[in-house]
């Protein structure tokens, strides 16, 4: 088991809790009827996103999906801008024109959030190609689910990335469901990572609920990419503890699956690791309390923020309309 130093653990814990508390807050707002927007819950997948973002540098690029809250907040989008966008406000990252499924924040490297399953992989290649062309030393990480592994763009992108040895990390968050369809009902091969071999690329499957597996795996992939050795497919096994989107029925999940994912919940596991590394309960609680205070303040400001002007529908279509 690879050791992770205390500073890195603290960083991962902080990012994980930021993702988790943001998710909790969003569900609270939706449940209370304060907001009514599409939201794709990340409960159960917080650690995968947090550990992956902790393995990147600030200037590295990220491409994520509609279930991208984890990557977005863990990479560091300022909370007020993030909430502003999710609530469709003028103060949002995209002036309220992108929304929960299309968060973009180049300042923190969140270059594309796509609403189309599998479409991020080919775009990640292009970001990485630019870095390879201009030698800026950046790597690009693209996050997607197990469902995306069955779309053509996945295969085209994997082959091209390996062909050119692009500095890209393919992070498959295998949460065992593609929308409402269970893994076994959409894929017969035992893992996604084994597909990497078909492209001549390294592929690893790790437990995304275990910080000692997910962080070193992504870090090694990032280091390889930065050394110019090409892409890696990292498959992080995890659980989506809610439905496909907030409010969606997920009674199709069998009871044994629910029991399994509760037992594997990454949050108590991570807290246990933190305590084993001599962080105190009080320290950890303080971190969460600070995050909650930041989130609450950001939400209040976002709720009070102005709506975008209606003439925004004519702007940013082409440069001439910018």
């Amino acid at each position, binding site marked *: 088991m690879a050791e992770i130093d205390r500073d890195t653990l603290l960083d991962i814990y902080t990012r994980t809790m930021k993702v988790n508390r943001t998710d909790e807050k969003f569900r609270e707002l939706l449940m209370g009827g304060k907001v009514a927007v599409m939201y794709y819950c990340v409960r159960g997948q917080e650690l995968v996103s947090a550990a992956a973002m902790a393995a990147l540098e600030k200037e590295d690029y990220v*491409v994520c999906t509609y279930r991208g809250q984890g990557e977005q907040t863990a990479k560091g989008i300022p909370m007020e801008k993030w909430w502003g966008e999710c609530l469709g406000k003028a103060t949002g990252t995209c002036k*309220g024109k992108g929304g929960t499924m299309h968060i*973009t924040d180049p300042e923190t490297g969140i*270059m594309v959030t796509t609403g189309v399953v599998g*479409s991020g992989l*080919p775009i990640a290649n*292009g970001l990485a190609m630019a870095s390879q062309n201009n030698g800026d030393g950046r790597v690009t990480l693209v996050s997607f689910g197990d469902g995306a592994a069955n779309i053509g*763009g996945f295969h085209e992108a994997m082959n091209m990335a390996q062909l050119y040895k692009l500095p890209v990390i393919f992070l498959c968050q295998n949460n065992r469901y593609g929308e409402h369809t269970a893994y076994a009902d959409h894929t017969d091969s035992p893992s996604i990572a084994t597909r990497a071999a078909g492209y001549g690329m390294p592929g690893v499957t790790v437990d995304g609920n275990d910080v000692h597996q997910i962080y070193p795996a992504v870090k090694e992939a990032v280091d390889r990419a930065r050394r110019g050795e090409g892409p890696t497919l990292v498959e992080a096994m995890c659980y989506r503890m809610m439905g496909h989107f907030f409010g969606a029925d997920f009674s199709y999940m069998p009871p044994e699956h629910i029991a399994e994912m509760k037992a594997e919940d990454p949050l108590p596991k991570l807290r246990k690791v933190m305590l084993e590394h001599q962080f105190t309960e009080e320290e950890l609680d303080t971190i969460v309390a600070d995050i909650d205070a930041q989130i609450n303040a950001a939400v209040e400001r976002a709720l009070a923020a102005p709506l975008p002007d209606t003439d925004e529908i004519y702007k940013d279509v082409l*440069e001439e309309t*910018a």
Partner: protein
Amino acid sequence: MAQITMTQALNLAIDEAMADDPGVFCLGEDVSAKQGGGVFKVTAGLTEKYGEHRIRATPISETAIIGAAVGAALAGQRPIAEIMLMNFVGVCMDQIVNHAAKLRFMSGGQTPCPMVIRTTTGVGVGFGGQHSDMLEAWFAHVAGIHVVTPSNPADARGLMRASIDANDPVIFIENILCYGLKAEDPGPGYRVPLGKAAIAREGTDISIITYGRTVLDALAVADDLAKEGISVEVIDLRTIAPYDEATVLASVRKTGRALTLHEAVRPFGTGAELAANIQEKCWDSLKGPVRRIGGTFSAVPFASHLEQAWIPQKSDIVAQIKASVGKP
């Protein structure tokens, strides 16, 4: 000035853009020196000058090609992606329509997507149903894209350079039958601004609004009809979308009659949009209905005589003009 073909014109424009800006690069199937510089040789000689990183031969993976162009554009480069034949855009429409075209808007202006998608097509070379279609209307219907097509070598050079300069995606359509056209080279640095039509021939009785290869048909017909005393104005849109509305409307207000002409099939074609807009805005100037000519509403056939029958006929253009101006 030297005479150049349209192929050379495109090559020169790409070459000088690559020389001026290290962020400009080409990618596509068979584009590098190893494969001869593209199936129509548009990128010939560029690998030798700029290396394989800037003339990237790709796998046959249209989604990966356009996705890579989108990503590189987001990172500030200016990719020129080649989709070998226009029908293959069907493979990568998601990347073009959902991503390239929309990322500027959906990001609130933060991530423009400056990229050129070069593509080739054309009826009359016996390529059959899946290698010949003109699909410009698909893209003209999507906000956030320029759709461009040259009808002559000088415009090819100038439009390509302007397309590479543009800070938004451009679909650049090259008609196979036009590659060999020769004309005077407009010289280095020449640009034809996007969104500006050309009055290819002035006239007073009717305006033909067209673009690409059918500009040649329109000009030929105009020559013939001049001998019969019918004065035809030919507007070459050059940029199909967003098009130069001012030039089109001014021409129709002058002549009082309009005929739209394109190789693409007629139903729901760009001619329909042009006709509707002309009728809304020039009603008082019109002496008759706007007429439309386009390809036959079927797949492009293989057999030569069928293919020739499929294409808009010069005799149809003549007949429509005569009917419009009321001369037998």
